[in-house]
């Protein structure tokens, strides 16, 4: 359970750590959108270089990012295989019944894999360098124009921060419960599918019961401290736009425009 690196915050003081969460959110979304425009060697080169530059600016070793990718390894393999066998067209290298490995299949598999890795890495930069609560604050601030349409932005942000806040707590708790059930002779990850599904019950039920109890306690504690839905509240953390944010924005906009430019005007 502790080995999951994806979605975790790693404290630091790097360029990326110091950026405004709003800037990081906007740049990540822009990057992910532009990944889908990249279609040849040069555009992918720019995207990769931009990503590597961001990784370096985050002052977290590349190895840690790679480890973050490992849990998704099988998903990647699966996606690539689907593309390889079901992408049809171009020169056929190998055929067995309805399974065909063709040039276009291989191309699109490579493309998908590249996109997959880039998108995951860029979101990993965001989560590695930004505290979950900062992300929630950033989303709230970015969504604030929707308040005019009476969209409950503050409530949504609260739900988001509560949910994010309790991910590690629930994971710890799941681990504790698993240890307790292991001590009572449960073998996790052994036996057939039926057996495995049965071993989930002794984890899920206590986990749910505890999560509900905790939710009730939190809402009581919040009400005791005067929380009321829909009130305008002030923030402890003020989001400030700094020069690093403007500089990053400029770098991203130039590189991403180059990618779109190469795709449409070369």
């Amino acid at each position, binding site marked *: 359970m502790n080995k999951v690196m994806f979605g975790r915050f790693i404290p630091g003081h790097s360029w990326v750590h110091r950026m405004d969460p709003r800037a990081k959110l906007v740049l990540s979304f822009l990057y992910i959108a532009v990944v889908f425009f990249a279609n040849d060697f040069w555009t992918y080169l720019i995207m990769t270089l931009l990503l590597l530059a961001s990784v370096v600016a985050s002052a977290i070793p590349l190895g840690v990012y790679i480890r973050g990718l490992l849990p998704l390894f099988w998903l990647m393999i699966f996606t690539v295989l689907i593309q390889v066998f079901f992408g049809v067209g171009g020169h056929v290298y190998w055929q067995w019944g309805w399974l065909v490995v063709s040039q276009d299949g291989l191309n699109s598999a490579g493309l998908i894999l590249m996109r997959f890795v880039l998108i995951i890495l860029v979101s990993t930069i965001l989560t590695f360098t930004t505290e979950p609560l900062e992300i929630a604050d950033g989303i709230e601030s970015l969504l604030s124009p929707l308040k005019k349409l009476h969209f409950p932005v503050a409530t949504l942000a609260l739900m988001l921060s509560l949910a994010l806040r309790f991910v590690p707590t629930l994971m710890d708790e799941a681990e504790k419960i698993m*240890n*307790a059930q292991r001590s*009572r*002779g449960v073998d996790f990850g052994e036996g057939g599918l039926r057996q495995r599904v049965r071993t989930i019950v002794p984890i899920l039920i206590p986990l749910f019961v*505890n999560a509900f109890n905790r939710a009730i306690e939190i809402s009581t504690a919040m009400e005791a401290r005067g929380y009321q839905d829909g009130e305008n509240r002030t923030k402890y953390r003020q989001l400030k736009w700094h020069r690093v944010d403007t500089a990053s924005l400029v770098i991203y906009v130039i590189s991403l425009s180059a990618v779109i430019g190469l795709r449409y005007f070369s």
Partner: protein
Amino acid sequence: MATDITFEQVNYWYQAGTPFAVHALKDINLKIKPGSFTAVIGQTGSGKSTLIQHFNALLKPTSGTVTIGDRVITNATKNKHLKPLRKKVGMVFQFPENQLFEETVIKDIAFGPQNFGVSEADAQALAKRMAGEVGLDESLLSRSPFDLSGGQMRRVAIAGVLALEPEVLVLDEPTAGLDPRGRSEIMQLVTRLREEQGLTIVLITHQMDDVANYADHVIVMGHGKLLKQGSPRAIFSDPAWLEDHELGLPSATKLAYELQQGGFHFDQMPLKIAELADQIVPQLPKGAITHE
């Protein structure tokens, strides 16, 4: 057959090889003798809980060896075939009521033995016996564990571990959050199990009175190291050292030190209330004690 637990040069790192790596146990050497009552004390975060998770191989040492009975556990030990250990060493975690999940109390207590191949009927009989052992009324057996009070739920959870019929019983703060009566009942249960069934007991606690009253061996943990081990008398003979490590004294010993300042004399510092009384009475001026 007696199960003893031996640690040799045990180190444990949480998340070894990541930026989050924490050195949680440092060069631990210790031995838990069969039939002994060992108390593990130390501040929060001193490594007590990490230590006991090595007792039934929930954690494996990053380096060094842990020997449980005739099984040797090292970093290279595979996760399979550890089940026999789990039966030998019963583990009652902090707030064990959080592990309950079955529809009825009796099913929950019988869950453990059934995992070890005991038939449903035998497990239910065992569950009934263990429920009686921990003082649960028979009328509660068919109720849902989630309808019980906190104290009752804890007894159900403890019965669920006892139903494995372990040789060593490890308890991580079993009395936390209980009222004084609940606390003394749990402690009496633990002592009775040791005396009647010869169980080896390992108890993590912050209650120095429990250490003084029940333990015959004390392990003091601090910052992942084993700071001191010995008899309760040896451990509590150095109040200055204990204070340095933010640990307290049993209430009888504490009172004795205060009385000493006021001119009382003690040949040997008392650990239990009865010992304290025995030493004070002869020193009181004649006529100070009146029986009414």
